[in-house]
């Protein structure tokens, strides 16, 4: 089975400081669901940045979608990034665009015709319960609403890899469950999902999800054999 992501002895340091991530080796397979946990400052966000190609590592090798991501020419990055959906911890919505336009942004960037994106975006707005707020700017939305828009934007393009940094941090438990169901639905359609979270309750919501635990920039399972996670998964009844 071809992997979606392969990390081999990857290290990341910012500037001349100490390594933020050290000796990361793991493989993510298509259609798998991973939770990334760890204390604050453990390096979760840095690892996600490597996953959504916002940074290149200081050392080691990364293969994404079967290609060497380290030597990937800059002009080929957009094509790879379009296969990745990202939910940022701080949402990073475009403040002067409406909720509708924020969600439609990845499709427009990918060159989807306007008539072809109206339906999916409207449907997505309905799914996250923001149909009435389609024209609202992010500043007028609550934190939870903004988070839902950010998630809708990340999943609208049906990415092959979905990377989410604390995606349920600002929503109530019901909405958190619904959003995770959305991730799970995408996952069943073949999307590989990586969710960084502090919320251990979320781990119980997804069947067959695997856990990656970061501790001071290192995976707690140094072998990275995530097919055999370091501790048993708690499966949903």
């Amino acid at each position, binding site marked *: 089975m071809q992997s979606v992501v392969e990390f081999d002895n990857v290290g990341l340091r910012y500037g001349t400081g100490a390594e933020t991530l050290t000796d990361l080796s793991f493989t993510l397979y298509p259609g798998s669901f991973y939770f990334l946990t760890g204390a604050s400052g453990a390096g979760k966000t840095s690892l996600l940045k490597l996953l959504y190609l916002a940074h290149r590592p200081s050392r080691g090798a990364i293969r994404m979608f079967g290609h060497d991501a380290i030597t990937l020419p800059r002009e080929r990055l957009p094509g790879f990034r379009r296969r990745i959906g990202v939910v940022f911890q701080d949402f990073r919505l475009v403040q002067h665009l409406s909720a509708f336009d924020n969600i439609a942004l990845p499709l427009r*960037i990918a060159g989807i015709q306007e008539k072809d994106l109206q339906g999916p975006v409207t449907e997505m707005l309905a799914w996250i319960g923001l149909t009435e707020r389609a024209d609202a700017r992010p500043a007028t939305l609550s934190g939870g609403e903004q988070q839902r828009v950010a998630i809708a934007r990340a999943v609208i393009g049906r990415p092959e890899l979905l990377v989410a940094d604390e995606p349920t941090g600002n929503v109530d438990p019901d909405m958190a469950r619904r959003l995770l169901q959305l991730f799970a639905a995408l996952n069943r359609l073949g999307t590989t999902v990586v969710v960084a979270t502090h919320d251990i309750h979320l781990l119980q919501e997804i069947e067959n999800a695997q856990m990656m635990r970061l501790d001071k920039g290192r995976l707690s399972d140094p072998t990275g054999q995530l097919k055999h996670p370091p501790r048993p998964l708690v499966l949903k009844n």
Partner: protein
Amino acid sequence: MLLDFALPAHDRKLIPEGRLSGPMPWVIAIMLFLTLLVAAAGVTLADAARKGGADLASKVTVQIIEPDPVARAAQKAAVARSLRSVPGVSGVNPVPEGEVRNLLEPWLGSGIIDADIPVPALVDFRIDRVPNGQMLRAMQRRLESVAPNIRLDSHSSWMAPFFDLMSALVWLAVGVLLMLLVATSAVVILAVRSTLNTHRGTIEIMQMMGGTDLQAARLFQRRVALDALLGGVVGFAAATAVILALGGRFAAVEPGLLAGATFPWYGWVLLAIIPLAVMGLAMLMARWTVVSALKKML
């Protein structure tokens, strides 16, 4: 690149366009106004130098210095006859004595010159090429056989410093024009960098979603093009008004050295092209600035 100007409405919303709200259109209007004035001055000088040069360079005047009016008139007629028989000589014009007196009047005062004051007789003619010293000496020897006391003045020799000055001014205008274009480019680069910093978050989001450098550059190109267009219209209108007003003043100047200083038709074509060229240059600079800046991001 012009196709980049026409972006879908939703793409235009990504970088809000505050037309005429920022200083860019006004700065471009001022730069373009100056550029057009310099270009107009350069074209006018070049045209005047070309016309005047062509007119005067081949012109020669024979001065017959003979105190006896009867002998002077005879020598004048003889010189004219002799010149008409020379191959390559045309436009032989014995200048009437009254005209010569009129020419001297501003220098000597009116009513002072009477028949008792001998004035030289003049014969103008043209040669089919710019005369050199050897040609003039041969001509002088030939004419001295009919008028022993003559002097040949080639207009090209005494006008040369003036036309050299005009030529230097034309090149100065070209230099100033290029400097203004460089300054305009610098203004565009600074403005685009500033806008890029303001909207860095939006551009980073676009990049993370798979937006290409050129997609981002197009947003800035459009904004800069609109600013350049608006600045161009204002700058062109102001420059045209000034050129037309100065043209009226030039027309009122008595014929002389400035007689050839008219604004030719191709000058207007050049003036119309410059704002479009500035717009194209601004778009090119915007694209280059954005793509260069984005290359520093992953």
